[in-house]
């Protein structure tokens, strides 16, 4: 479903070329829950951006839903963003001029969900994430953790087929983090493909497969034995 082969990402500065990603080969199947780990600056976010069609690789081939990414037309890309991809950004990226309710609602508007249904869905999510009381506040009025919750809610409310989560629990209390991971696990069980980036070993274990990136290279790629053992 998702296939990267020999993906390079580099930036050219005046005298040298800096590689962020180098010859990445990766295949993700439907229903996978992939965890990406690695030190800071390893290129994890960059990889997620490429997978999520936000950025383009400098070299190599990338297949999204079995379609060569460089051939995907602008229109089709918009469509993918509407229905296929949900994004949780490391930096949250909430829309400053919209309040909590509207931030969560926005993807539904682009998906063309009708007003009534939208209302019900948003209410449900507010409730589930325990932020009903905050629904009229703007991002600047929220704590970092609260912002993260909103960002997560916004990413999954449209039930995307692929969820790209860049440190979704980084700012959360461990109990809340646990709650979120359970929620992701549940969504994964229901069929959502998830790729998460995390520094937390414990949360990494929620994935059924873990890859480790270092200096732009995939150092290891392993099925999650612990999890399988558990099953």
């Amino acid at each position, binding site marked *: 479903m998702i296939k990267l082969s020999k993906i390079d990402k580099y930036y050219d500065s005046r005298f040298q070329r800096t590689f962020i990603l180098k010859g990445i080969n990766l295949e993700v199947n439907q229903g996978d829950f992939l965890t990406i780990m690695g030190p800071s600056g390893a290129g994890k976010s960059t990889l997620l951006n490429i997978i999520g069609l936000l950025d383009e690789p400098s070299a190599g081939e990338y297949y999204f839903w079995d379609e060569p990414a460089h051939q995907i037309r602008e229109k089709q890309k918009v469509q993918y963003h509407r229905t296929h991809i949900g994004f949780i950004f490391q930096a949250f990226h909430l829309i400053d001029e*919209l309040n909590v309710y509207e931030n969560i609602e926005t993807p539904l508007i682009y998906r063309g969900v009708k007003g009534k249904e939208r209302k019900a869905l948003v209410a449900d999510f507010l409730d589930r994430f325990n932020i009903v009381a905050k629904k009229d506040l703007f991002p600047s009025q929220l704590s970092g953790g609260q912002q993260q919750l909103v960002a997560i809610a916004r990413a999954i409310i449209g039930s995307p087929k692929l969820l790209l989560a860049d440190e979704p629990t980084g700012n959360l209390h461990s109990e809340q983090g646990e709650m979120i991971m359970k929620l992701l696990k549940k969504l994964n069980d229901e069929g959502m493909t998830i790729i998460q980036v995390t520094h937390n070993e414990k949360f990494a274990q929620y994935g059924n497969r873990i890859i480790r990136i270092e200096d732009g290279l995939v150092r290891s790629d392993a099925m999650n034995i612990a999890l399988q053992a558990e099953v």
Partner: protein
Amino acid sequence: MFTYSLKLFIRQLISGNRQLLLNILGFSVAFAVVLFLSTFILTELKRGKSAENYESLYRLSAEEGAYWSSRSIEEFTGDFPEIKGITKVHADWADRSYFEVDDNQYNAGKILYADKYFFDVFNYQTLVGNITGTLETGESIIFTETGALKIFGGIDVIGRTLTFRTSSFGEMDFKVAAVIKDLPPEAMMTFDVIIPVAALEDNVSWYRSDHWGQSRYEVFVSLVSSESKTNIEKQLNAAFQSAAPEYATQDKGEIFLKPYSTLNFSESHDGVLLHSSVRKVKILGTIMMIVFLLALINFINLNTAQKIKQSRDIGIHKVLGASNWNSSVRIVAEILPLLFVTLLFAVLILVFSLSYLNGLFDSSFHVSTFIQPETLLTIVCFSIITLFFSTLFISSYFYRKNLFEVLKSNSSGKKENIRNALLVIQFTLSIALIIASLVINKQNSFMQNQSPGFQKDNIVYIPLSDQMSKLAKTIKQELAGISDVNNITMASHPLGESEMGWGMTLNDNGDEKRVVYEAMLVDENFFDFFGIDILNGEGFRSSSIRESEHIFNEKAIQTFGIEDITKARISSYDNATGEIIGTVKDFNFESLHHTIRPIGFVCAEPENLQVIYLNLQVSNGNQLQETLQKVEAVWNKHANSWPFEYYFLDNTLDNLYKADRRFSKVFLLLTFLSVFIGSLGLFSTSVFIAELRTKEIGIRKVNGARISEILAMLNKDFVKWVAIAFVIATPIAYYAMNKWLENFAYKTGLSWWIFALAGLLALGIAVITVSWQSWKAATRNPVEALRYE
């Protein structure tokens, strides 16, 4: 989707965005200018079509002018079945005319003298009374609504009587016969009151004349169908030729019918029609487009700046599934209400400044004038252009493949070039307009300060009525007796006015030819009085033979090719043969718009002269008042209750340049508005740039940069743009203004300092505008600046 975007926009508006307010202000001013100027231009263009039947309406014209004598017209009013109506009219040429009702005097306003066929040719809507047949006898008078209101305070005035007095025709009594609806602003023939020509024929003996050459009427012809035009022209020529072959061939030439709809742009002096200047329409049209362009650029820049600030948000929206189309819809949704609010403000601005603008432009627009299909269409067009270009430009910033960049970026590197180019365009236009304003001003003061070649200070002149001219000799003697009257002379009309074009026969040593020149009747003291040099001969003396001795200016002698003036004879009016006894130095007897033409002076008896000139001893205001009181006492003795009036010659001459000054003022206002709009845009751009660089400024200051260094850094770019704009604007303005100056007979030079001054002005305005913001950014506490991020 649209309502969703609208909601976002309204939220921004309510949160009181200063940039947004500036945006609205600048653009409203521009829209008000567009509204007014487009209406003004439309009105000028429509003048020719202001008469209902303009398609079959013509002015009788000939190669040698469009003025006709009574005698000539009789030949045309015969049996032409294809002519529906033919009417002769003329304007008022009196120095002063007024009405008297119940012992109160009222300025007569604009008078039209029309013969009894007038309403066969022109249609007007009657409010009260009846217009048919009213002009047949000399007793009725017709007012427009405004005219009636001014004098009677109401329009229910049928049958009211009033006395009409005018310096050219004396005194007559009239009865109001009808009041017609006010003429629309685009009317070409304008008047406040119609007086029947019959009244003049009844009351004024000299007015009745069967001279072929007494050409005082403009003649309008209404045809049954425009198709018969050529045919009618043939018949008219034939009729005229057979009636007065010599006059027709020599003085008039080929006769033709000039379509009414083309008359507003034809060259002509003050007749009964208002004339539009093609040049003025073109210039105003150009400025209108410039003002709009300046405002449009602001609009685009400001909106783009806003959007760049929200660039991250737009990126997020895209990740969440917004398509380019959605983004464009959003932009439109934000611009539309902005446009709407802008238009609303523009209308308000216009309503409040309308009376000022009417005064400045000499127009008579009401608010309702702006509510017409053409104006509305203009507004819609300009709105659509605005909407289209702003959406296009703004979208181009965000139409990128790599979403990641949009998400991360704050400024949009390469696109800055577009913004800078737009900025240079704005500066260029502003500098060009400033140069033009300066040149126009320089030309005006050049014309007004140029000596006309005769003495014009401390001179007062008094127009005499027809009756009083008979007593001219006595009045003159008595006035000359007043102690502070230094000198006195008389003439047929005031200097500065040209009203007597004569076509006479010159016999130059046996060679006969027709010559055309401006004529002025004067008394023997005229040249001495005005300090005009006599080049040849001794000038007129008290022994001069009246109505016979001529003096021409150099130009005339040159044009006529006279070798020896003593051998030349000129036929004078009344067909007496006159001698040429001398030549005077050329001087500007008209405004400096015209080159000096041939002029002939005839020594005349005081009874034939209508203007008395007095050179007064003026050492202080009191003395002047006393002298004038003495003059008035003399006047009252002979005037038979005719009011005393006098004019200062320098004022009269100054008035010749009134239209130029008006135009200069209009241009100055528009230049000012353009520069103002440009500055608003510049200001917003500087705010935007300062905001973008807030963090940089903070860090530089933490590292020890001085305020002056930061200021220099922020202002440097703008100075560069002004310099580039100056280089572009200079040749354009040079070319345009050279072209404009070609319209003047006497022109000022395009001095280098004009360009330098314009450049400095633009630079000054730019630096002040930008520094306002730079200063704020540069003096901000660096900690605060860094926290701002």
